[in-house]
């Protein structure tokens, strides 16, 4: 995701008038280290690209209000997974509900090798990819009731009820 300095400046001007961050990037590059301007989700620790604020409402955060927040999905363990009905055809449909965490995002300068980007919503319409990742985490989270519901699913499949 290499950007030119001009593109970085445009992204930065959406957030601040102080452009000293670009000087830091150039200095680090002179020392052989690639530093990337990103926005960090304070809840998940995942990152968004440098144009996150500039493209808010266009590429990112559609429907989440006028102020940029994190669009990373989070699980609501206080609400049980949906009950098993004939409408449920695969076990992947059953999971704790998810929602956008909507926490503050902060501008951050990080080494390229340390950056783990969040899957932006516009690259995963319908959240099929993100749901897979979150569901796998729900299966091992101690707060989750999903493993028990999966036991019930197995019994339904075997005709135990």
């Amino acid at each position, binding site marked *: 995701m290499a950007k030119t300095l001009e593109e970085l400046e445009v992204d930065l001007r959406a957030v601040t008038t102080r452009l000293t961050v670009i000087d830091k990037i150039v200095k680090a590059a002179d020392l052989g280290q690639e530093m990337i301007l990103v926005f960090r989700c304070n809840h998940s620790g995942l990152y968004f690209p440098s144009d996150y604020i500039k493209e*808010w*409402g*266009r590429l990112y*955060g*559609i*429907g*989440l*209000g*006028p102020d940029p927040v994190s669009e990373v*999905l989070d699980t*609501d363990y206080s*609400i*049980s*997974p*949906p*009950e098993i*009905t004939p*409408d*449920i055809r695969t076990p*992947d*449909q*059953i*999971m*704790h*509900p*998810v*929602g*956008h965490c*909507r926490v503050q995002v902060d501008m951050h300068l990080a080494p390229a090798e340390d950056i783990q980007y969040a899957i932006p*919503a516009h690259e995963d319409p*319908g*959240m*099929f*990819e*993100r*749901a*897979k990742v*979150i*569901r796998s985490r729900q299966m091992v989270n101690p707060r989750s009731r999903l493993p028990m519901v999966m036991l019930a699913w197995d019994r339904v499949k075997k005709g135990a009820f």
Partner: protein
Amino acid sequence: MPRTIIIEDSISVAATSINDNVIVSNASLRRYLRAPFNCRGKIMAVISATGLRISLDYGSKNVVGESDLRVGTDLQDPLDVLSDMWFPEEGAQLVLRAANTTGGAITLRYRIILTEWEEELPPDCRVQQRGPVAVANNSLDQQLLSGLRYERAPVDSFLAVFMTASAAGLTRQIFCDTISIAPSSAIAPLNRIPQDPFDMNVEGIEVPADKQIELSATNLSGGSLNVFWKIKLQETVRL
């Protein structure tokens, strides 16, 4: 003193599934499935992530067409109210249908308030809201109601329109049966479902029965944008 019933729940709707009546998904709410008396209804709802649509019927009458909701964690009255002017008769069955087209389970938080109505039941107000609806760059007059339930008024009604956009650059026009109601004008870039009354564009527009409502959006901003809209049709006669 009129009696009041409040039906409230937070329910998970499974991925790629339809819940034909979320009220019965909670066993303790089954007793409220039918209106206990002639009443005035109010419904408000939010969802945890985009992709879940609801509709509300009482008896055989639809009062909230397939509608998207605000993404949020708490219900705000009156900002999240979809409709507060529908009047079910005693015994009318409430059907709140939720359809989730995404790959993840989504929370639906809703509250239905039924307040006893002792006089003759007035006409209902029918509502539909949608968003985000993508409007591609260089789209001219994209018809937002085309093919939808309330593209034409079922009876003589008064129309109110609410609109917002995900970012600056969208304009909208409103026609009723080819008569211009509102000329081309910018849409507020608030990036959320419109709220009543803050995001009102026009109100009090007479729409005769079966006449077409044209709500169109134009995007010449240079990039794709999204629009959010809500229409309210206050019927003048009760069917």
